[in-house]
């Protein structure tokens, strides 16, 4: 049976997921009054600051009130508070569904643009170089070492790595980051303590990229350190579980070489759950990490999320980011659906449902 139809069905259902997520977002922001109050608070703060500024030059209290009233109307219009949420927010959602993420109200990109797409596209590479790279390294180490360990279950090295996995899992990323900064940046003075570039930063091109990579080293080491242990252990356990299944025993009994048994009969079967974790992890990594980005003064997606939600609340940015990450999840799921079929020969689609013979 063609893969296209079932995948199309999958795509449609995932698109439904996307719609539901956006619907729930609008409902949760709108019906609870959270969005209106959040924006109202922002306006209130600005007006309170403006009162103080006006007080320095304007001596007529009535004139101040009139000024504030006009400014309030302006700000209400700017933030869309002159329209109820059920008018304002669905429009926003319809626009993002047309792949137009629109304009942020308060946030701007490094270059000064207020287009949500520009802001996200500027931050995304920073996050990719940090979190996605770290995850990729973790995955490579995790899969290699995990598979290798599964053939040495119970050995001294297996036990040692099990202990390491427990420690690695328990380490908070922010704490590890600070520890590594103290050791590598301040004590050994081998790596920069934070930020994305040196001072003064290289002007452009490859030199600037190298400087960025140099600054990314310590945060990447941190992220790998706190995630690689559990990853190795998970891969090792999954592989070990498959290695003890009957079909592997049969393959070994047939006298097939170890490498072939490992590759064809163990890894291929163990691959889907490992790949699922990897792909979803990669997609999730694009969301950034507020803690690690804060510790290392890194301008990534995590900080952007924080700013959009709590720092300088921005409705359009929240909707844009939610759309983008849901879309990434949907795409990741679709890729996984294809990979399952390619990786595991036992997986077949029958009328849109995956079945194992």
């Amino acid at each position, binding site marked *: 049976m063609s893969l296209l139809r079932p995948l199309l069905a999958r795509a449609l259902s995932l698109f439904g997921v996307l719609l539901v997520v956006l619907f729930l977002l609008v409902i949760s922001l709108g019906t609870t009054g959270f969005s209106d109050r959040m924006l109202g*608070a922002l306006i209130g703060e600005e007006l309170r600051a*403006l009162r103080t500024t006006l007080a320095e030059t304007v001596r007529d209290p009535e004139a101040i009130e009139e000024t504030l009233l006009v400014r309030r109307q302006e700000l209400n219009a700017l933030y869309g508070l002159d329209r109820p949420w059920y008018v304002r927010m669905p429009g926003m959602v319809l626009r993002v569904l047309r792949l137009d993420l629109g304009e942020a109200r308060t946030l701007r990109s490094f270059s000064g643009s207020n287009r949500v797409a520009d802001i996200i596209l500027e931050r995304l590479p920073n996050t990719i170089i940090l979190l996605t790279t770290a995850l990729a390294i973790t995955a490579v180490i995790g899969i290699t070492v995990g598979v290798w360990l599964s053939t040495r279950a119970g050995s001294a090295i297996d036990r040692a790595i099990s202990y390491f996995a427990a420690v690695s899992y328990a380490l908070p990323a922010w704490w590890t980051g600070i520890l590594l900064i103290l050791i590598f940046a301040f004590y050994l003075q081998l790596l920069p*303590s934070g930020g994305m*570039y040196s*001072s*003064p930063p290289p002007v452009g091109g490859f030199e600037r990229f190298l400087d960025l990579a140099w600054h990314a080293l310590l945060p990447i080491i941190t992220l790998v350190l706190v995630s690689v242990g559990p990853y190795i252990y998970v891969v090792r356990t999954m592989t070990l579980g498959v290695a003890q299944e009957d079909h592997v025993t049969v393959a070994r009994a047939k006298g097939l070489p170890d490498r072939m048994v490992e590759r064809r009969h163990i890894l291929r079967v163990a691959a889907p759950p490992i790949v699922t974790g990897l792909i979803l992890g990669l997609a999730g990594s694009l969301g950034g990490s507020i803690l690690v980005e804060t510790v290392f003064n890194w301008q990534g997606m995590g900080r952007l999320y924080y700013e959009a939600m709590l720092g300088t609340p921005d409705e359009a940015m929240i909707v844009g980011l939610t759309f983008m990450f849901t879309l990434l999840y949907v795409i990741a799921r679709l890729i996984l659906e294809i990979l399952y079929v390619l990786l595991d020969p036992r997986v077949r689609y029958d009328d849109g449902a995956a079945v194992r013979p």
Partner: protein
Amino acid sequence: MLRQFTRALVVLLLAGLVAAQEYSPPHEQPGPATERIFFRSFHVDRAPLDLRAGNMDLYLFGLRTDAALELEGAPGVQLYEAPATTLSLVLNPAPAPEGRLNPFSIPEVRQAMQYLVNREFIANDIFRGMALPMVTHVSPWDFDFLTVYDIDRGAGIRYDPELARELINEAMTAAGAELVEGSWHYGGEPIRLRFIVRVEDERREVGDLVRAELEQAGFNVAATYQAFAPAVLAVYASDPRAFEWHLYTEGWGRSAPQRYDVGTINAMNAPWLGNMPGWREVGFWQYEHAEQDELGQRLFRGEFGSVEERNEIYRRMTELGLDASVRIWLATVVNSFAAQDDLTGITRDVVAGPRSPWTLREAFVPGQDEITVGHLWVWTERTTWNPVGGFGDVYSIDIWRNLYDPPLWNHPFSGIPQPFRASFEVETAGPGGTLAVPGDAVLWDATTDRWQLVEPGTQAVSKVTLDYSRYIGANWHHGQAITMADVLYAIAQSFDLAYDPDKSRIEVALAVTARPYLETFRGFRIVDESRLEVYVDFWHFDPPYIASYASPTSLGMPWEVLAAMDHLVFEERRGAYSDTAAGRFNVPWISLVMSRDARLIERTLRQFRTQSTVPEGVFEVGGQALVSPEEAEARYSAALDWLERYGHLVISNGPYFLTRYDPPAQFAELQAFRDETYPYRPGDRFLGGPPELAISQVEAAEVVQGEAAEVRVSVVGPGTLGLRYLLFDPASGEVLETGEAAPGGGGEFVVSLNGELTAGLFPGLYHLFLAAYSDEAALVSERRVDLDVTF
């Protein structure tokens, strides 16, 4: 109280003495002391380590108390202290719905809170001596502390939880509440207080302390620990009657010294200014206080004939504030700014510390061409550099203030406006009279786009003659000479924004904000090529305040940049000055520091140059044209060359110019402006630390009942010194006597207590509070002396 006061004062004085070292300029070239400044972002938690590692020379963001104390005495590091933050608890006084009770709607319960908070613990233990207790909105470091001295010290407010609980018991019982098993109930239900506690700093511990005291007093407290945004959402964006909060730990930044405060007292006490519960938000319940509003507005409008009358209003408002107790003042916190030991030339503002325009002009590290200044951020998602609409964040302002010279600025020690690059003379007929405005004075007419002669018979309260001779003839950063045309364009632009029907419709926010101020200007008269007379309806008993009010432009940008922006915003409609106009018309909110926005202006500048455009009308005054097409063309070319070279259009006149601005790298580079025409050289702006103002010695003999007694006090400090005293009975909580000590010359004062007064004293200890002041410093030095009265 004396212990922590002494500790905090010693810290400040030592910091002052360190900063007040002799200053030896590193060279005699025009411009600033150092060649380059790098601004970099450092997270506040990591900043002490980065400083010790030599990654920066000065951290311009206040350190956390723990970090500051750790750095105290560390080799190679010096700390600059400034009382830059005040803390208060705001109570929600809204009445509860029928059948429920809000304890803080009862004034007596709010007053009891004054005794329930342990300010000394907050200052001594939570802030480890880096704070001073506060009773009123006036900090002990404010000059107006003297104005309310007897009210503050004589209020008898202290930590007395027993008394507080007694007062609460009385008031709550009278209101119909019952204490059931140690917990207050009303209508059979326990009374629950929602307490919003900020978590970013020591306010978390303050919140825990207050919570514990409230629970001891029988209240069921639900504390919510929140950061800025959710806390603001709960407190300032909700109707007080919705009771999403009952009390909240507020924090206030103090930015510059004020000799005569008008804004703070209104903001912290008078509801009309929108900073009391209800916040003047439409639809919310409002805390009202008619007398505070009336007095506050009188103070605001300058409706007083003398300093004494002003002080009386100020005192009454402070008394009413204490009586209402909607805000419970807790402490003034000393912020610490850390620097490398070898960084020289820091001028310390008495409130803002090194965060003032004075500091980086004179700062340098011997043998080094550059200094690195750390800050929390260099760029934020809100950053905008717009000379008309303003700046989007405080970090940008900290950079910008090194790039331009304002005409006037408040003195960092006295808080009084003073010449910075312009000088002034003031003539006034106020508060009752007026002066005739000369017939050749002009005002900008936004409808005809021309300077028009003022109406015959026009009168104004004051005249300020501003002398711009230190600007005129000197160069802007791009090499073009500053002329009176720059002054006139900036003034005309302000009037245009406010009164031009089309422009004011586009930039509504700017127009309505500027109008009430501009309406008080009666005329401008160009005296000569560098002097301008400004006629204005404004009076203050201290003339520099009139000059500050009447200064019509900050003169921060050359006219061609302003003209190009005006064209872009109002003719081409491809940009906006304000965020709201940008949103409304879906155009960029112009930020001159961003290459993208500067390129928008570039097109306009090129068009101007090609067409030899000279803005119409604005440079034609008194029958002569101030700018020729050739001069205009040279200006446009210079601005375009600047843009080509540096990628931005931040062109100004200060000691540094901006060479690089790199948002992703959180980096900005400033280069010294060594132009020969720049009028200042290293050393010209150095003021060091605030002058020492201290009570150095007190001689107090035993006081014998019924006999006259004298207390001799030595005060050291600058200018004309004074000493105020206050005799306080700690047993009764009453002020027995207050007055000015008699000066004996050379800083010596005598406090005389006559026999009649001492006859009324009982044997025991009395407190004699002493407050020394100077006309050259916007601060007060205080000491408490315990007098032993015997038979």
